[in-house]
């Protein structure tokens, strides 16, 4: 038995192990002819498709379009939901009055809203972005309101005993108290926005975007292209999550301590 200390891989390289194992399994599946080679191209072919897509600009274009829609949807959702969440959270009776409605629509699959938004906004970009906004906003709203309502009473009392006004307590204590929960909402919100945008790009008369690319490649049986687009979507989701995580760590440095 080797001890952990003499294990020949540095800790920082360990995540690579999972990737290498996945690629080896992938090659093994192909070598063993477990899957029809048309349905499962090799990792190398997929890499090549990804490289070509980036080099000729088509994959990059689709990627950026999806980024644009997702970010836009998330930003609109933030602008709408954060102030509203603060109002609802600092006014618990109002929240109780609306809780059922918010919970109901939060639990409604946003994709079920596509037809409604299509009727109202047509098949343009608006519909894709606004359905994603709808989904993300409810998640963010719920978390902000929840964070504000559950701010530790002790710190509010501490500020009150110093003679702080209600507005000061709201902006300098309650809001900061609710930040960790707000970030939970933002991370879930942006993930949901990405899911909705990609689905919308697949099925709602879209000319570009990663969803469109995946769908089209599948229709044309261009499997390496399809896998390349799927991985690009995965990388996008991962990076968006990471972005919010880094922002949270810098902004809410006290979280969990």
């Amino acid at each position, binding site marked *: 038995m080797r001890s952990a200390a003499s294990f020949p891989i540095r800790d920082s390289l360990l995540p690579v192990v999972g990737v290498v194992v996945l690629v080896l399994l992938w090659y093994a599946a192909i070598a063993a002819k477990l899957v029809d080679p048309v349905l499962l191209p090799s990792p190398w072919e997929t890499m090549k498709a990804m490289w070509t897509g980036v080099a000729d600009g088509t994959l990059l274009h689709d990627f950026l379009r999806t980024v644009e829609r997702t970010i836009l949807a998330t930003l609109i959702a933030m602008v709408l939901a954060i102030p509203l969440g603060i109002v609802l959270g600092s006014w618990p009776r109002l929240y109780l009055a609306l809780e059922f409605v918010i919970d109901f629509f939060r639990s409604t699959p946003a994709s079920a809203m596509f037809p409604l938004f299509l009727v109202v906004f047509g098949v343009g970009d608006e519909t894709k972005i606004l359905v994603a906004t709808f989904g993300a906003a409810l998640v963010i709203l719920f978390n902000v309101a929840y964070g504000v309502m559950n701010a530790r009473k002790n710190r509010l009392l*501490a500020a009150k*005993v*110093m*003679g702080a006004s209600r507005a000061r307590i709201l902006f300098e204590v309650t809001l900061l108290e609710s930040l960790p929960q707000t970030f939970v909402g933002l991370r879930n919100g942006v993930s949901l926005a990405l899911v909705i945008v990609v689905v919308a790009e697949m099925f709602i008369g879209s000319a570009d975007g990663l969803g469109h690319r995946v769908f089209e490649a599948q229709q044309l049986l261009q499997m390496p292209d399809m896998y390349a687009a799927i991985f690009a979507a995965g990388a996008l989701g991962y990076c968006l999550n990471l972005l919010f995580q880094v922002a949270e760590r810098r902004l809410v440095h006290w979280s969990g301590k």
Partner: protein
Amino acid sequence: MARLAVALKEVPVVDVPHVTVRGLRKSFGSVTIYDGFNVDIPRGRFVSIFGPNGCGKSTLINLIAGLIPVDGGEIRIGGKPVRDVRIGYVFQNYREALFPWLRAIDNIEYPLRVAKVPKAERDARVARLVAKFDVKIDLKRYPYEMSGGQQQLVSIMRALIVEPEVLFLDEPFSALDYEMTLFMRDQLQHIFNETRMTMVLVSHDLEEAVYMADKVLLLSRAPTTIADYPEIPCPRPRNPETLVDPVFTQLRGHCLDVFQREVRKS
């Protein structure tokens, strides 16, 4: 500083009421905690509050400090309603009382910002207060980077920075280890001796309550009344020898008797 010197010369011989509570009523739901409660807290003296669990010690200082509303009765500090008085309050749970998004020094300064004191004066006052405490803490740190004792010390400094008329402390040392508790008692006594501001300490440790106090307010079970309010005439500064002083041990024994009588009454 001038005020401090005057205060030292004027150590009161006769008690002058500072906080007056008259006809206080407070219930939580159907549970009545106070029903026509009266008490005076003398100016410039140290009062400890001791009583059975759940008798309403925290409730009493929260009512006096204006943190929760009274159902009835009148509370005045120096003849004024609480909202017109500068008070300091130290919470039991320092982890949930300090602002973790502010560095220790900004926590201490915060009440002055609320009071709209200009930046230069804020800095000067914080520097003066820090100099009074002979402890070496890096105040540029965040509270969560400090030990429990250091955090509670920062809480106390935050309460003192406004030079309050009355300082309330609700079991401030109960979350600290024994060594730190002893150290903090000394610190608090040192501040009291220097400033002679009115202090009200809730303690669940009878020895601490008697050791720190000029008077011990012994409470009964709810609905709460004063079981006794004895004077503790031991000289200051108090030190470990105080603990074996016959006057001290006799009074501690008396307080324990009163307490046990009240606990058994249920």
